[in-house]
């Protein structure tokens, strides 16, 4: 019910929202929870296991029960805490984990079966008959479990990520954080003040305290006003710091657009990576429930949450309220309710020596032992010194004491300490380097204590940071001592809930101990205690205490489970912001990209690059037609292909040749200027890293080519070899991949084309290189070939790439040639037995590809020693061969090889196929493959089996070079 005259909501701004199809009024400033409470909606959700009705337990992000789906135009957001979601005009929410309706949930039947659904029951049953698990039992369990649901459609929301840096990160803007921010801000430090809630102030917003003799909210307003004017202080409301990581890095989730109607381009959430030199943890404390029979009914909630609803939102959960406490902290709340004109039926205080409370009846030394009210609390039963008493009440506030919100201090494996005095865990100092906990987060619960602690923490940090602390007066505020007499669970019959979300009761914890799951981690995992969306924020400590009781150990000996990031759940979309669709990885485009697309070429991904697959001509209906034509074109006239994606590394210096000798298996230092040599590079473990050509451009100037795939890898490798082993050598290298556009010109008419394009014959021997002026542009011409035809590569600076590509294409077309794509390039290289990373896949040695003779005996090189291990050479290894089918059947890469007579099974496996293509040149399918002792088996017939694609073909084993084995065309 709405309470007149109370709360910070804006009553001049009425709003309408809907829950489960019913429209309700609310005000600006309401959360969904406060608005539902204002409208007397008590059941908000259903629990995980027993589908018990769940109301609102808290007023913050720790809420375990009031989880709903927020409906959007395309997607819904499940498991949203009604206690955090702010109401905006048109907000539509839906309850979850119920069928057919929230009020009448069929799976509520689970509650009746609860004796058979005790902790871990599923490990003991559903085993027979075996086939039933996947067909019946598991689907039933899965459907019953889970909470909210995803729409199944792509998340179309906008999200972002960002970096921020500061001297001091203050987590939490309650009294502790605010005064720390004030002190640090006035001292000139660069401060980020992050607050999970929509509004800054923490408990000052909820409790009716005084600071310096005036309402605390006046102090709050003046501090916030001063902070807002400081350019060195960044206020981040609606921002939960979610994780503490190494070296002052924190993750934080900002709710940018969740509290309003969606707007174009406005991020829903922003995931921040904040780097802070120092951090003050001022996250306050969370009040904890008390376990007693049927303590989970809607209407039973945290006493401090009741204060929040009354004082912050102007609503009450009931008309006749009671409190159940083991300490004094609910007393002020009770007085607030009385002052607001509500009836407070009683305070039930478990302490026999509890103080009186004016006109409010106090049952001292009493406990609640039972409750009634199926869809909302109606009555409670007390056990007092004089027997059992029944009390009519529709709202019960539990005040079981406070747990410091120390979660972030555990994120780097810090273990909190047990404080017997506070009956709570407190942070271990230094648990996160650079972070100090202060105020309630550190076990100081009075407002005055928090202000003093916040100020002291700020002053300490400022000194550390080298700032002179500016004066800040410590205001006077409530400073009552915190006296608590621990009460975790009320003994008695019935089920007493610990974990309200996952339906873990004290009996489950006891049963877990009874069955030997008595370590705290075993108990957690066996009962699922603390594994629900609230991660046990309000229940872990009590569960631990119940376990300690059951095992006869103390709480400190029992230990605690570990809090892990994130502090509040973070959407995958926020942490993965920017990666939707093409944002996952950069796109790299060649200078010829547009020209290729203009000709209708499908562009396919080659690592980050896009390369043309083939260039369709009118009338061609399949890629194969285009591919066959392009292959024939290269073999018969001339083809043009953009090869700019290959890595190019420019090396200079007197020791560059020596360096190349060290990284390649073969010798480069003897290469004459103006010549190019093919080289193989090994990893230090003896396997092939990459291959390519390197040209000697000058006495001390070289140009290395890598494969497209390994360009970055090779650069890193060269950097390592250089810096680790020969940093004093006179060699420097830099990638020039991006600077040059480079085009292959291949085919019998390549020389004619070059002559026309250059205005003179290329004048190069096979494997020669020279500088050339190409239509007025300084470039280079190489005579190298990846096709087996006479081939050239022409390089110009990238700005001229597109123009040269179009020029070469036009010239080729006048000669009956034209463009060829990746498909044809692949067939051409297979015909010629040239390898790619399909063959040098990381498990291949130089021996396997028949290049062991390229490992120079005269010098050391990277990988040479390891390549000589017995397992790296010899007939037991699979070696590169060619395969040609006996019939004209297609071959498939990934097929395995068997001898004709053998059974097809792993034990008889002889090898596998790496590359296949249809060769129009040889009018046959061809394959490259690795075959055991393959070089000795040329001429043998082998069976190729691909179960997946239903291919079973006999092939002849051949040399891998099918076309022009003598290389006459290359050298023509």
């Amino acid at each position, binding site marked *: 019910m709405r309470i007149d005259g109370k709360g910070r909501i804006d009553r001049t701004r009425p709003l309408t929202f809907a829950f489960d199809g019913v429209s309700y009024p609310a005000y600006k400033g309401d959360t969904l929870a406060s608005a539902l409470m204002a409208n007397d909606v008590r059941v908000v959700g259903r629990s995980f296991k027993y589908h018990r009705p769940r109301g609102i337990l808290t007023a913050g992000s720790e809420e375990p029960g009031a989880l709903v789906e927020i409906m959007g135009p395309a997607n819904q957001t499940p498991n949203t805490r009604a206690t955090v979601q702010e109401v905006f005009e048109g907000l539509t929410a839906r309850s979850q984990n119920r069928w057919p309706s929230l009020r009448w949930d069929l799976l509520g039947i689970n509650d009746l079966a609860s004796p058979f659904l005790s902790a871990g029951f599923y490990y003991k049953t559903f085993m027979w008959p075996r086939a039933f698990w996947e067909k019946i039992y598991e689907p039933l369990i899965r459907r019953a479990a889970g909470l909210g649901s995803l*729409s199944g459609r792509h998340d179309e929301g906008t999200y972002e990520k960002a970096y921020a840096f500061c001297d001091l990160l203050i987590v939490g803007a309650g009294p502790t954080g605010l005064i720390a921010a004030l002190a640090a801000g006035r001292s000139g430090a660069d401060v980020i003040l992050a607050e999970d809630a929509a509004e800054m102030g923490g408990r000052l917003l909820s409790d009716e305290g005084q600071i310096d003799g005036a309402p605390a909210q006046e102090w709050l307003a003046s501090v916030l006003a001063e902070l807002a004017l400081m350019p060195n202080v960044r206020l981040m409301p609606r921002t939960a710091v979610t994780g503490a990581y190494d070296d002052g890095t924190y993750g934080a989730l900002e709710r940018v657009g969740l509290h309003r109607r969606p707007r174009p381009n406005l991020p829903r959430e922003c995931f921040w990576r904040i780097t802070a030199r120092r951090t003050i943890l001022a996250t306050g404390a969370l009040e904890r429930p008390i376990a007693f029979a049927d303590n989970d009914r809607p209407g039973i909630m945290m006493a401090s949450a009741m204060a929040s609803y009354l004082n912050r939102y102007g609503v009450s959960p009931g008309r006749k309220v009671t409190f159940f406490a083991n300490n004094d902290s609910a007393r002020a709340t009770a007085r607030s309710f009385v002052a607001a004109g509500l009836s407070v039926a009683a305070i039930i205080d478990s302490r026999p020596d509890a103080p009186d409370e004016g006109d409010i009846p106090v049952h001292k030394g009493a406990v609640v032992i039972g409750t009634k009210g199926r869809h909302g609390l109606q009555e409670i039963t007390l056990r007092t010194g004089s027997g059992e008493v029944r009390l009519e009440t529709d709202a019960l506030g539990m005040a079981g004491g406070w747990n410091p919100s120390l979660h972030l201090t555990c994120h780097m494996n810090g273990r909190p300490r047990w404080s017997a005095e506070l009956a709570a865990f407190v942070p271990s100092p230094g648990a996160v380097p650079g972070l100090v906990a202060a105020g309630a987060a550190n076990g100081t619960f009075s407002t005055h204590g928090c202000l003093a602690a916040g100020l002291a923490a700020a002053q300490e940090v400022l000194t550390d940071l080298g700032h002179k602390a500016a004066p800040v007066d410590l205001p006077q505020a409530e400073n009552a001592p915190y006296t608590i007499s621990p009460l975790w669970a009320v003994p008695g019959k019935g089920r007493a809930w610990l974990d309200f979300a996952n339906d873990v009761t004290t009996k489950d914890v006891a049963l877990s101990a009874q069955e030997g799951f008595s370590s705290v981690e075993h108990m957690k995992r066996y009962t699922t205690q603390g594994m629900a969306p609230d991660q046990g924020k309000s229940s872990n400590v009590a569960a631990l205490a119940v376990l300690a009781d059951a095992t006869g150990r103390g709480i400190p000996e029992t230990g605690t489970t570990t809090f892990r990031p994130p502090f509040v759940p973070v959407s995958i979309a926020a942490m993965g912001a920017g990666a939707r669709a093409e944002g*996952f990885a950069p796109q790299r485009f060649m200078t010829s990209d547009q020209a290729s697309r203009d000709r209708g070429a499908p562009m396919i991904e080659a690592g980050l690059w896009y390369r043309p697959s083939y260039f369709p001509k009118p009338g061609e209906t399949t890629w194969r037609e285009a591919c066959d034509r392009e292959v024939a074109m290269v073999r018969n006239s001339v083809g043009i292909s953009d090869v700019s994606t290959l890595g190019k590394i420019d090396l200079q210096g007197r020791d560059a040749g020596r360096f190349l000798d060290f990284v390649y298996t073969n010798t480069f230092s003897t290469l004459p200027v103006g010549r190019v040599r093919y080289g193989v590079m090994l990893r230090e473990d003896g396997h092939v890293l990459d291959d390519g050509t390197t040209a000697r451009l000058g006495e001390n100037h070289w140009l290395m080519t890598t494969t497209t795939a390994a360009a970055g890898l090779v650069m890193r490798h060269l950097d390592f070899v250089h810096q680790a082993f020969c940093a004093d050598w006179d060699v420097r290298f830099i990638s020039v991949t991006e600077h040059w556009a480079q085009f292959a010109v291949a085919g019998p008419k390549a020389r004619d084309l070059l002559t026309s394009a250059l205005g003179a014959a290329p004048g190069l021997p096979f494997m020669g290189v020279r500088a050339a002026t190409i239509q007025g542009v300084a470039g280079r011409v190489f005579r190298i070939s990846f096709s087996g035809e006479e081939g050239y590569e022409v390089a110009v600076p990238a700005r001229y790439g597109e123009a040269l590509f179009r020029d070469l294409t036009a010239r080729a077309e006048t000669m009956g040639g034209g463009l060829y794509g990746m498909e044809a390039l692949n067939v051409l290289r297979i015909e010629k037995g040239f390898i790619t990373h399909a063959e040098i896949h990381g*498990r291949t040695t130089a021996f396997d590809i028949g290049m062991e003779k390229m490992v120079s005996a005269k010098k050391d090189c990277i990988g040479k020693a390891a390549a000589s291990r017995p397992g790296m050479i010899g007939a037991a290894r699979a070696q590169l061969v060619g395969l040609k089918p006996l019939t004209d059947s297609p071959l498939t890469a*990934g*097929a395995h090889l068997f001898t004709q007579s053998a059974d097809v099974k792993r034990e008889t496996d002889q090898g*596998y196929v790496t590359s296949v293509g249809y060769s129009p040149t040889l009018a046959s399918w061809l394959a490259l493959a690795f075959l055991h002792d393959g070089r000795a088996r040329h001429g043998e017939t082998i069976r190729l089996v691909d179960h*997946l694609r239903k291919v079973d073909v006999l092939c002849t084993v051949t040399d891998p070079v099918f076309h022009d084995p003598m290389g006459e065309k290359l050298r023509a």
Partner: protein
Amino acid sequence: MRYSGLKVITEGLFGNKGWKPAWRTPDPKPEYDAIIIGGGGHGLSTAYYLAKNHGFTNIAVLEKGYLGSGNIGRNTTIVRANYFLPGNSEFYSHSLKLWEGLEADLNYNVMHSQRGLINLFHSDGQRDAFARRGNSMINQGDDAILLDREGVREHLPYLDFEQTRFPIYGGLLHPRGGTARHDAVAWGYARAADRRGVDLIQNCEVTGIDVENGVVRGVQTTRGSIRAKKVAIVVAGRSSQVAAMAGMRLPIESHVLQAFVTEGLKPVINHVVSFGMGHFYISQSDKGGLVFGGDIDFYASYASRGNLPMVEHVMEAGMTLMPMIGRARVLRSWGGIMDMTPDGSPIIDRTDISGLFIDCGWNYGGFKAVPASGWCMAHLMATGESHPVAEKFKLNRFATGHILDEEGTGSQHNLH
């Protein structure tokens, strides 16, 4: 006490008072025929199969913390047999067969769920590599189906087939792949081993390994010295430290692998799905949480926790592959410590010390191996000979160059 549905009902009727401890809590005896250091999945299964298959009756498992406190308790629960190199192929195939009979064997529901695993590929080259793998699986006697893009769409309609940076070309479906409830596997083996008389000793840290003249004699522990004829080191995540007690230096570097679980959701992902263009794999637990992970954090670590760059990378991969999970919220992240070997394959072998055996180097594939690892380790300890399906998992294979490198990334521990 035998578990069954009937037992659950009868106990439920009588207030669940009759459930007995799942295992005893014995004090260590002065001497055992065999001691297994490490009460994780592999250690417990080793003990179980030593007792069951080889008749050992005097065995102890020594666990520093609580049973199942290592990687068996923090993984993404995937069970599969989709390796392609001989050596791995037969081993994981054997393991999958053991999984398929595990509930009946252990009398414990480990919730092994063969919901199918799909590895997606995004280029012709990846398709060929997966075809090689799938054919290996079938040659081994396991199952594999090559799906084209439309085939994938039938199974996983929620993937982004239209806008994604790396289009989905198809997938390799392994119908028998799936998941299991990780903790239950540890508890099931523990309970079954205990029922066969194995002493499970928790909170007992091994501090030394006693070796005399090249023969193992026992161990020193925080609960006193214990003699043993045979000792097995089965402590993935701490292998280097324990092996060092016997003077050994292993081909292992320890790395942290983070994993993530979301809040509970109604069923939306019915398979195990992995992305071929970024390390990302996901399934949905029976409780409804999306359980997913990616690559290791790449730096040597024993911290059981990671850092944001890898967290973000995993989320980014998820968002590009299946943007429908965007609104699911990550509830918890954690890190396990992985024994990373230079070729990504494990070690099950004798050591140079007589009677001392080692099972380690599971990289981040240890969970699915739990049954076969124990089976083969028990075989090795009992007979002194490698089990045929684990005979390539030798310690000296790096020295000899008989590398088992499924990834093809070479002798760099963190790349496997």
